[in-house]
């Protein structure tokens, strides 16, 4: 039996702002807040998936485009899937959107958080292949500016890193406290390795021949401005003008920043914080100028793209000021999950 005392203060009506008290509902801890943010992104994805254009054949064509440039082994299932969606866009899109809605609500409802996060890993990997063509990482054209390695794989990664368990909890009081949130589920060495691989791969993608061509970054930025609000289009156009005919220099600078961020996970906390702050700025700049907020404002965007997910990832790796408190296990009434 829980020791938490519960007292009814009101009727729980929408206007009863004293319906529950802090004694009954502990504010979510840092990891729970990130889980909720991840769930919020899933919910936004679901809502975007319910947009009218997604119920048309255009959705199938969008999926088929992900096959371009991929090896046969990867592209054939994508083309098959795109054809299927093209034949039954209403039923399949409604199913896809509803699955994402359920994932979001499952993450938000504490008793189902583990099941929802587990399901989200499976779903994300499916979307990464069938919807994003593995983020283009096998095509030789993947770029961190345009959303490599794919938003879906970042959803999966975040679900694993925010998994509600305490690595080393079995070790009892002797176990060292986690230095950052992502380390709580998988341990600090594994989490740091994931960080290094992710950001180092982004640095590698930035240096691919297709991305260091003189007009590569310029074309990428300017191609996203059509249909966007004037202020967002202006940001993209200014960014494009800044790197016009400077593809190699822009790629090298970006790759250098990404490599610095990749190493940041292994630096002492003050330097790590600086690297993470740079990561947040880079992720935000890429999201605004390179991804035009996922194309949402132009209508027809299917997700907010990688920017917000990279920011969430940065927050999951932000060094804790003191030892992170261990929370109760999943399903508990308190803030921790």
């Amino acid at each position, binding site marked *: 039996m*829980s020791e938490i005392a519960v007292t009814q203060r009101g009727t729980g*009506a*929408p206007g009863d702002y004293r*319906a529950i008290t802090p004694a009954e509902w502990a504010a979510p801890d840092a990891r*729970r807040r990130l889980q909720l943010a991840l769930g919020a992104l899933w*919910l936004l994805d679901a*809502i975007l998936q319910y947009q009218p254009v997604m119920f048309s054949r255009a959705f199938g064509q969008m999926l088929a485009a992900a096959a371009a440039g991929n090896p046969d082994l990867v592209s054939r299932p994508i083309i098959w899937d795109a054809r299927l969606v093209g034949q039954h866009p209403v039923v399949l899109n409604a199913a896809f959107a509803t699955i994402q809605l359920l994932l979001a609500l499952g993450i938000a409802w504490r008793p189902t958080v583990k099941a929802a996060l587990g399901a989200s890993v499976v779903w994300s990997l499916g979307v990464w292949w069938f919807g994003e063509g593995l983020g283009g990482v096998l095509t030789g054209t993947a770029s961190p500016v345009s959303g490599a390695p794919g938003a879906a794989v970042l959803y999966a990664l975040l679900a694993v890193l925010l998994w509600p368990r305490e690595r080393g909890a079995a070790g009892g009081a002797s176990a060292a406290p986690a230095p950052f949130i992502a380390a709580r589920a998988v341990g600090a060495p594994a989490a740091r390795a994931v960080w290094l691989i992710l950001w180092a791969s982004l640095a590698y993608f930035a240096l691919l021949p297709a991305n260091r061509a003189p007009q590569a970054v310029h074309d990428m930025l300017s191609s996203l401005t059509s249909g966007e609000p004037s202020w967002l289009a202006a940001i993209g156009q200014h960014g494009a003008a800044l790197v016009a005919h400077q593809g190699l220099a822009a790629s090298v600078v970006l790759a250098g920043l990404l490599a610095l961020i990749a190493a940041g996970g292994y630096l002492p906390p003050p330097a790590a914080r600086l690297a993470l702050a740079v990561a947040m700025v880079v992720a935000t700049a890429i999201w605004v100028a390179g991804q035009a907020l996922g194309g949402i404002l132009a209508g027809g965007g299917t997700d907010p793209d990688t920017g917000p997910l990279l920011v969430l990832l940065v927050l999951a790796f932000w060094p804790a000021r003191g030892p992170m408190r261990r929370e109760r296990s999943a399903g508990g*009434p308190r803030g921790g999950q």
Partner: protein
Amino acid sequence: MGGPSWLAGILAAIMIATAAYCASRVVIARGHQRGAERGANLVLTVMGVAMAGMLVSWLNPLPDRLWAGMFAGGMAWFGWQAWRARRTAAPERGRAPHRHPLPHLVMCGAMVYMPLAVRAARPGPETGIAMGGSAAGGRFPLLALMLAVFMVGYVMWQADRLPALARAGAAPTGGPAVPAGGDGPDRSARPGGWVLSPTLAACCQIAMGVTMGYMLILTL
């Protein structure tokens, strides 16, 4: 606003059910509710009807401007409630962030925005703001996105609180503190029974938040 008519129909039905539920809360709890609760339930009732009307044109009983005016009044009401809550909760600041009417204030703001934005994008005789036609392409899309993101966050926050609300709802009204997970509550002793369940109220707000988020995205 554009959207599949069957989806608009389903959401409109959910909104009407939500409005009916909020209205029943007003009636059943008239003896127990404070002014703020009654006001919130009334505004949510009107909001449910208005949202159903925006989704399905023939359900829209009032012109857009009247809806916008009513929800501007709702904003003023919740703004006043927020100011009052801020004053009374000042000593406990930081302890109870959920005691704030901000979400309802923002919901009213979204209800003012949607008819006006869609009307600005589709000038002409008042035909309501029902979906089923072409995409609206409303003005100030960033505001619509920010409101939609707020709704998404609000839905997640409400869903996170559901287990705590269920425990709070299981406790007898005004009674002494009881241990969570203890013996089952005597629901017959609680006025209003399941109708006044805080969990059900939160579920309605979740449904309303998701629907409003969808409608806001459609205004982009």
